[in-house]
C-alpha cells in the first residue's frame, strides 16, 4: 500500500512539472519586482499583461489557485503532500503565484474555521475566482498594539448593524471591494469579550478611505472610515461577541507570514552582495573586518533561523505545536530582516542612499530599508511578542 502511494506521488510530481512547464508563460517565471507583477483580482480587476491573464485563467481552470481547499469551495482538493509537491515545483520553476489575495491568506482560513457552511459556500469560491479584493480592518488610530481596545462600533438595528468608526493600516483599502473587520458589539463586556468579526462591502454608503504615505515614500496602507454604514446581519462570521477568538487565530497566522514561514522568495545572500560591492584584500576576503564579522554573524543567525522553522514545522507534524511560538518567529524573523537591511545599507555605502532611479541604481534599497522599520511594529510589535513569549511560554507572572 505504501509503495502505491509513493508511486502515485511521484507520478503527481512528474505530471505537475510537465503541466507547469507547458502552461506557465515564461514571463510569469520571472522574479516579482513589484507587487502588481502578480494579479490581485477584484471587481475592477485589470491584468498587467496577457501572460498574467493567461496564467491566472489556466491555474483557475486547473483548480490550482487555492490547490489545498476542498473542491466544493473552489479549491483543488489536493492533499498536503500533493500541495507540497506543487509548491516545490512552482518554486523550482520560479512560477509566480496566479493570484495575490488576503482572501486566500487571511480571510479564507478564518472562514474555514469559523463561518457557517452557507457562508463558506458563498464566499470561498469568489475568493478563488479573484472576484473580490479583500482587505483587513483590525487596527485603529488609538488601538495599535492594544488591539482589543478597538472602538469601531456596530449597533444592532434589527435586520442590520450600523457601523461607525475608523480603521488604520488597512492595506490596499483604496483598491479593495470588501473588508473583514473587527467591531465592538457589546459595550459593557470586558474589552476582549465584546468584539465581533464582520464582512463589509466597501461600496456601501458611508465608507471612505485615505492612503497613508510611509517613510519609504510609498505605501499600500490606508485609513478607512465608517460613517453609519448599514451591514446585513448575515455578514457576521462566527458567534456574536466572539470575534476575538477569530482575531487571535488570524494574528497567529499573520505573524507566521511576516516572520517568514511559508515564504518562498529566494533572497540573495548578504555576503554575495558584499563581495560584489566591497573592497577585498589580497586573499579575496572583505577588507573591512568589522563589517565582515557582522555579515558572518547575521548569516549564522539567518541560516539557523531557517533550520528552526524546519524543526518546529517537523515537530508540529508530530502533534507537538505551540501557537505562542509564532510570537518567537515573528519577533526573530522581523528583527533579522531589519538587520539584513542595515547590512545592505552599510555595504551599499553612499549609493545605498539614492532615492529613486538613476544610472547607478534603481534607488529601491533606501526605500526598502525604511519599509523594514515597520516590520517590528506591524502584526504586533517586537515588544508585544516578547510579552507573549514571557507570559504564554515562560509562564512569567503578571502584576
Amino acid at each position, binding site marked *: 500500500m505504501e509503495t502505491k502511494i509513493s508511486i502515485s506521488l511521484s507520478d503527481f510530481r512528474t505530471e505537475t512539472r510537465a503541466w507547469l512547464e507547458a502552461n506557465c508563460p515564461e514571463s510569469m517565471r520571472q522574479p516579482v519586482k513589484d507587487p502588481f507583477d502578480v494579479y490581485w483580482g477584484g471587481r475592477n480587476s485589470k491584468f498587467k499583461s496577457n501572460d498574467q491573464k493567461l496564467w491566472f485563467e489556466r491555474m483557475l481552470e486547473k483548480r490550482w489557485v487555492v490547490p489545498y481547499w476542498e473542491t466544493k469551495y473552489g479549491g483543488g482538493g489536493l492533499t498536503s503532500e500533493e500541495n507540497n509537491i506543487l509548491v516545490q515545483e512552482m518554486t523550482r520553476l520560479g512560477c509566480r503565484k496566479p493570484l495575490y489575495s488576503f482572501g486566500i491568506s487571511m480571510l479564507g482560513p478564518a472562514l474555514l474555521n469559523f463561518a457557517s457552511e452557507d457562508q463558506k459556500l458563498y464566499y470561498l469560491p469568489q475568493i478563488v475566482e479573484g472576484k473580490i479584493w479583500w482587505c483587513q480592518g483590525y487596527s485603529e488610530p488609538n488601538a495599535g498594539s492594544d488591539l482589543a481596545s478597538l472602538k469601531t462600533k456596530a449597533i444592532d438595528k434589527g435586520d442590520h448593524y450600523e457601523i461607525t468608526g475608523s480603521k488604520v493600516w488597512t492595506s490596499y483599502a483604496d483598491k479593495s471591494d470588501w473588508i473583514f473587520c473587527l467591531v465592538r458589539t457589546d459595550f459593557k463586556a470586558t474589552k476582549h469579550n465584546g468584539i465581533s468579526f464582520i464582512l463589509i462591502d466597501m461600496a456601501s454608503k458611508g465608507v471612505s478611505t485615505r492612503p497613508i504615505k510611509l517613510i519609504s515614500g510609498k505605501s499600500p496602507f490606508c485609513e478607512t472610515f465608517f460613517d453609519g454604514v448599514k451591514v446585513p446581519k448575515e455578514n457576521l462570521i462566527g458567534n456574536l461577541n466572539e470575534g476575538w477568538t477569530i482575531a487571535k487565530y488570524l494574528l497567529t497566522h499573520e505573524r507566521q507570514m511576516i516572520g517568514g514561514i511559508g515564504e518562498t522568495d529566494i533572497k540573495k545572500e548578504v*555576503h554575495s552582495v558584499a563581495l560584489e560591492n566591497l573592497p577585498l584584500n589580497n586573499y579575496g576576503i572583505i577588507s573591512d573586518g568589522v563589517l565582515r564579522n557582522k555579515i558572518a554573524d547575521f548569516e549564522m543567525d539567518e541560516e*539557523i533561523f531557517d533550520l528552526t522553522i524546519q*524543526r518546529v514545522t517537523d515537530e508540529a507534524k508530530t502533534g507537538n505545536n505551540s501557537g505562542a511560538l509564532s510570537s518567537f518567529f515573528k519577533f526573530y524573523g522581523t528583527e533579522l530582516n531589519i538587520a539584513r537591511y542595515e547590512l545592505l545599507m552599510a555595504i551599499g555605502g553612499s549609493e545605498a542612499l539614492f532615492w529613486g532611479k538613476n544610472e547607478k541604481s534603481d534607488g529601491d534599497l533606501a526605500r526598502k530599508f525604511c519599509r523594514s522599520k515597520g516590520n517590528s511594529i506591524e502584526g504586533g510589535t517586537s515588544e508585544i511578542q516578547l510579552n507573549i513569549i*514571557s507570559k504564554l*511560554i*515562560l509562564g512569567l507572572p503578571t502584576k
Partner: protein
Amino acid sequence: MALILTEEQKMLKDSATELLTVKSPVIKMRELRDSKFIPFDPKLWEEMVDMGWTALTVPESYNGLDFGFVGLGQILEETGRNLSKSPLISSILLGGSALRLSDNETLKTKLFPGVMEGINQLAFAIQEGKHHQTKSFTTKAILEKGNYIINGSKTIVIDGATATHLIVVCMVDDKISLFLVDAKTKGITISKTILMDSGTYADIAFKNVKVSAQNRLNIKLDGRLLLDQLMAIAYTGISAELLGICKQAFDVTVQYLKERQQFGVIIGTYQALQHRAAILFSEIELCKSIVLKALQAIDINDSKTLKYAHLAKAKLGKTSKLVTSEAIQLHGGIGVTDDADIGFYLKRARVAQQLFGDYNYHLHQLAKIKGY
C-alpha cells in the same frame, strides 16, 4: 530527514536525564571540587558503561551499538544540564571517534573493547598554544627504524592526567598524522592543570617518545581528512553539552524570576526582566535547531557536516556566554556567591565555549568557507 528526535533517541535522552539527575546532579560536581578536584566519580563512569553510552558510537563490527551521534549528543546535553563529570568527552566523543574514523583495523580491534568497558581511557592531545587551530602543529613525529619518535608539547588535554592512552596530533614531514601513545611511555611528562570549571586538564611534554609505526591512526587515510571529520564531531559534541548548559541555566533563572520578591512583588512581573528572558528563550530555540542538525549531519555523512559543526559551535559559543552571564545578572547578588549553583554554569560554559575554538574562531571559519 525530519529535524526531530526519533522515538529511540527520545528514550535514550530520557534515560540519561533519569540517571544523571539522580546519580550526578550539580551537588556531586561540587563535592568533587571540594575533595581536591577529583576529576570524576568512577562509580558513575561504571554506570555509564553499563548503560551502553561508551558503545553508542562504536561500529557494530567492533561489537558497538552504532546508535549514532544524535544519541551521544542527547547524553552530552544532559551532562551539560547536570554538569556531570566523566570521561565521556575525552574518551568517547574525542578518542573513540578518532578510533572510529581511523583505518588502522588492528589498532581498532585492539582498543575498542577496553574503551567500551571504560578501562581504556583515551585523551586527545591537539592544542599547542593559547588558541585552538587545526592548520599546522609544532609537535613532530619522525620515522626511525620502524618506530616514530615524537617531540613536542600539548596543552589543555582533557582528562590528560588520568587517561591510559593519548591520541596525539603530530606533523609527519608537513602532513598531519595521529598516533596512539600509551600514557606511561618513557619521555612523556604530564602536568595537571585545573581550569575554572574545576575540571582536570593536562600539559603534556613529549621528549623522544618512541611509538610503534603500527600505532598510527591514519594508514592510507589522509590525516587532514581524519582530523577535519574528528573536529566536526568535537565541535558538535561540545555544542550539545553547551546546549544543556544553556537550557538548565535558563530554566533555573526563569524559576528564580517566578519566586524572588523585591519591593513586595515577584521580580518576574517586571517587563524589563521578562523581555530579557524572552530573548534568551529565542536564542536557545535557535541553538536547539543547529545542534540537532549538526548531529544528524555526522550520522548521515552530510557533505556540509563541517559547516554545520562550525555553525553550532559559533552559535552555542555566543549564546552560552549570553545565557550564563544573564543568568548571573538576573539572579542578582546570590548569583555571584559560591553557594549558588548558577555560577558553576557560567564557569563550565566559559571553558566549553573556549575548547576547540570560540565564537570568533568558528565565525571566521564560516566566512572563509563561504569565500568572504
